[in-house]
């Protein structure tokens, strides 16, 4: 009896203590404890890859039940880790923050960190494994819908080792429509695999609203597998979704090619326009034209550097602030070149060819010794980064769009100058009949000089537009000059519209041929087409009407 009593008592004590342990485990917010924080960053800094991945996993599990400050801390931590901002010291990790360093464990700020603080190297497989965990932790922790959307989109790339059940439970509680839609994309593979007809139909309808190659591939894969547990309804839905996705993807691929043609055409147009005007008006073959493009790009860079030093707030808009400079600098150099060299050689066009070529070499080397040969570093404003998807696989990058925009503006501006200003009138008169224009009082010499400066300035605008898509260095122009000449010759000497059409046509032809036969063949075929065209229409698309 006594014995039994004791046994019972001890059982109660054990049970109680067990209960206490579990309760205290549930109460503690493990990732808030400095010791746990230390453990986490230690593994992340120097653990094996598997250990790190296990640590991400357990952090995600802990975060789900943690309180808001702990969630916030974890989300920040894993985000900084992913972005490569860790500086691992012996007993903690520092993160650069406002020109100071933040100790992630204690939250203290420091002016400097120990010399042996190292940046951990994250290789590609680790970063691939990390990315979905980082997004998942941020999804759990974030409050604002925008942040949640960003995290959900991050997960849509791949779910990795994150458990679909967790995302599913978040998805069921999600109130924001956009975030929920993004989470549906994330859950598609899990739903397809589930074997549950409703889930599969939902997955297929999600895929059917995503006109991408990935969703086409997912549907193909789903249709290919020979599983009996797929019901007839699901199969039909998948097949019709596949055909509609396929159709839209193909259309978007055609649009992509057309857009590439347009954007390459706009580059060609920008580079060739100044040349067309100078060549058309004076018959001067200006081989230094490509270097004016380069000068325009350098002027843009100087404006950027000046803004960086004087008005950092305006740096975002340097591309627009630089427009007058990118026009004026080459225009002034062009005017000087016309006055000092070209003017004396009007009667000997072959010599202008040589002289302008010499000027082109001079300009290249001048820039090389003054600024250096390295590629210039351009600041990419936020609004120019990446781009947007129009539909399906047809996406547009902002920088290319900007160059198309500049081409359009330049075209309109040039047409306005030529057809609506007195300078344009004189220029047209001189182009049509130089002597006659001189007889009625047009100062042809001055018109020449101004037209030369104008054409040079236009090349500068091209340099500005190109600085966002190509690299800027002293020799950047040399690859453009031949293409520009082809455009001018095809377009018809001196014709602005002809230049635009020729640039578009050649750009389009390039864009169509290149994916099929490669870049080398496309150069050959385009040149062949140009030769055949010139043979049929030696004066180009829009031959000059005036008498020579």
């Amino acid at each position, binding site marked *: 009896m006594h014995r039994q009593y004791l046994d019972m008592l001890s059982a109660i004590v054990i049970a109680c203590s067990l209960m206490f342990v579990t309760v205290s485990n549930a109460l503690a917010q493990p990732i808030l404890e400095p010791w746990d924080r230390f453990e986490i960053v230690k593994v992340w800094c120097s653990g094996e890859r598997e250990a790190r991945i296990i640590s991400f996993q357990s952090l995600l599990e802990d975060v789900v039940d943690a309180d808001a400050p702990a969630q916030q801390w974890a989300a920040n931590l894993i985000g900084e880790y992913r972005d490569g901002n860790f500086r691992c010291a012996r007993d903690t990790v520092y993160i650069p923050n406002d020109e100071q360093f933040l100790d992630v464990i204690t939250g203290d700020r420091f002016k400097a960190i120990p010399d042996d603080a190292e940046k951990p190297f994250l290789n590609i497989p680790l970063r691939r494994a990390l990315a979905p965990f980082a997004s998942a932790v941020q999804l759990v922790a974030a409050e604002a819908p925008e942040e949640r959307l960003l995290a959900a989109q991050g997960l849509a790339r791949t779910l990795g080792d994150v458990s679909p059940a967790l995302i599913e439970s978040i998805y069921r509680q999600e109130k924001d429509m956009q975030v929920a839609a993004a989470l549906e994309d994330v859950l598609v593979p899990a739903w397809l695999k589930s074997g549950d007809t409703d889930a599969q139909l939902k997955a297929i309808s999600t895929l059917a609203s995503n006109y991408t190659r990935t969703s086409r591939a997912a549907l193909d894969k789903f249709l290919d597998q020979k599983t009996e547990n797929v019901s007839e309804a699901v199969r039909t839905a998948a097949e019709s979704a596949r055909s509609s996705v396929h159709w839209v993807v193909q259309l978007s691929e055609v649009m992509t090619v057309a857009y590439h043609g347009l954007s390459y055409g706009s580059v060609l147009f920008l580079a060739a326009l100044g040349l067309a005007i100078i060549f058309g008006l004076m018959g001067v073959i200006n081989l230094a034209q490509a270097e004016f493009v380069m000068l325009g790009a350098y002027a843009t860079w100087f404006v950027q550097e000046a803004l960086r030093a004087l008005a950092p707030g305006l740096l975002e808009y340097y591309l627009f602030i630089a427009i007058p400079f990118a026009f004026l600098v080459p225009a002034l150099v062009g005017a000087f070149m016309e006055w000092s060299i070209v003017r004396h050689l009007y009667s000997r066009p072959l010599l202008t060819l040589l002289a302008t070529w010499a000027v082109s070499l001079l300009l290249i080397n*001048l820039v*090389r*010794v003054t600024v250096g040969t390295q*590629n210039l570093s351009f600041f990419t404003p936020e609004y120019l980064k990446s781009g947007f998807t129009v539909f399906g696989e047809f996406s547009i990058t902002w920088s*290319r769009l900007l160059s198309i925009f500049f081409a359009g503006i330049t075209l309109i501006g040039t047409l306005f100058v030529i057809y609506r200003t007195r300078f344009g009138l004189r220029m047209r008169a001189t182009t049509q009949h130089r002597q006659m224009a001189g007889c009625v009082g047009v100062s042809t010499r001055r018109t020449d000089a101004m037209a030369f400066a104008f054409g040079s300035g236009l090349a500068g605008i091209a340099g500005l537009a190109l600085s966002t898509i190509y*690299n*800027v260095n002293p*020799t950047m122009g040399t690859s453009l000059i031949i293409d520009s000449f082809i455009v001018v010759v095809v377009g018809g000497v001196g014709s602005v519209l002809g230049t635009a059409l020729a640039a578009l046509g050649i750009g389009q032809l390039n*864009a169509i041929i290149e994916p099929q036969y*490669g870049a080398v063949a496309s150069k050959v075929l385009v040149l062949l087409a140009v030769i055949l065209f010139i043979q049929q229409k030696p004066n180009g698309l829009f031959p000059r009407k005036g008498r020579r």
Partner: protein
Amino acid sequence: MKRRSFIKGVGVAGLAMSAPGIILPAWSQEKVKLGCLFSSSGSMANVEGRLNYVVRMAAEELNRSGGVLGRQIEVVSTDPASDWPLYGQQARQLLEEEKVAAMFGCWTSASRKAVLPVVEQNDGLLYYPLHFEGEENSKNIVYMNSPPASSVLPALEYLMGDNGGKARRFFMLGSDYVWPRTINAQLKGYLQEKWDIKPDAWQEEYVPVGHSDFQSLVNQIKSFADESGEQPIVVLTVVGNSIPNFFQEYINQGITALDVPVLGLDVVEADLEGLDTESLVGHLNCWAYLQNAPGEANQRFLNAWSEYVKANNVPFRGDVAIDPMVSAYSSVYMWAQAAEKAGSFDVPEVRKAFPGTNFDCPSGYNIKLTAENNYVHRGVFIGSVNQNQGFDIVWQSPETTTPVPYSSYI
């Protein structure tokens, strides 16, 4: 920029134009001449131009310590203007008119192939500082850098392994000339024989040298990556200014190293100048030297270079060093050592002295020549782009490797 250096610059530019061949006249009989064949204009100028200065720097260092065989060195520079046949012509001029004891030059294999018959005819000596496709072993060329078996293949193996992300699909994009085509032929053989990978797992594309518009190619890479679930990579063998232009487009179209890593075989630190490397972190390259190489020899070299840049107003960055610079720099020392050992500047004598010459290279390895061939034994680095326009070392070989000039995979 000070006015004097500006004037000097204009003067140099003018001189370069008036005599696009040899710049400096022969004016000193006691000096021994070395020739440089690196372009300072054209598509290769940004990377090749640096090598002229680094050869001069090595020569100055040797001169300060008494020269070679008691004679001071004079470096004769040329500008072949990234025009392959011009390299051959100017090599001939250097050998026949300037009577240089050795030449240091060429970046692309196309330019080396142009110089090859010239040095063989005149029994000259060319030190070639680039890693390349191999398949060549001339007694008149010292190959300072590695053939594919000790650079490209280890890097590919890394990318296909566990730590590199198990790449199984390959988009090979190169400039259209001998190096990319031979490299890709070897890669295809290697993939088929060693990994049993089928031809539908790769796509091969070439662009003209100097090509700058990569939008449709990057778009092709995107659709190539979407075709199958297996991990794709890009093996990039474009050269010169095509490299930054390619990466610019890669950034603009929003592809990251997590989606499709790029193994850039000709990508050096200098190509990243001016790019937003934040979006490029994780792309890889492989060389026999990276600027982050550990060791004192590297620190010494980097300090010397940045001081040289400051003192001589060199139009390149003093804080960027690339493999071919180190290879060209080392080659001057390798030549000096062979000449000292031979006790003569005559090419046949110097050549006889090659086996056993070695140099503590800034890469941290003791590089050497053996009697077997004219390939220098180098170490291997695999680098990964970091945020600071440089490369982190992800792997490096424990020892120098024995070069295998002729690949068994062709």
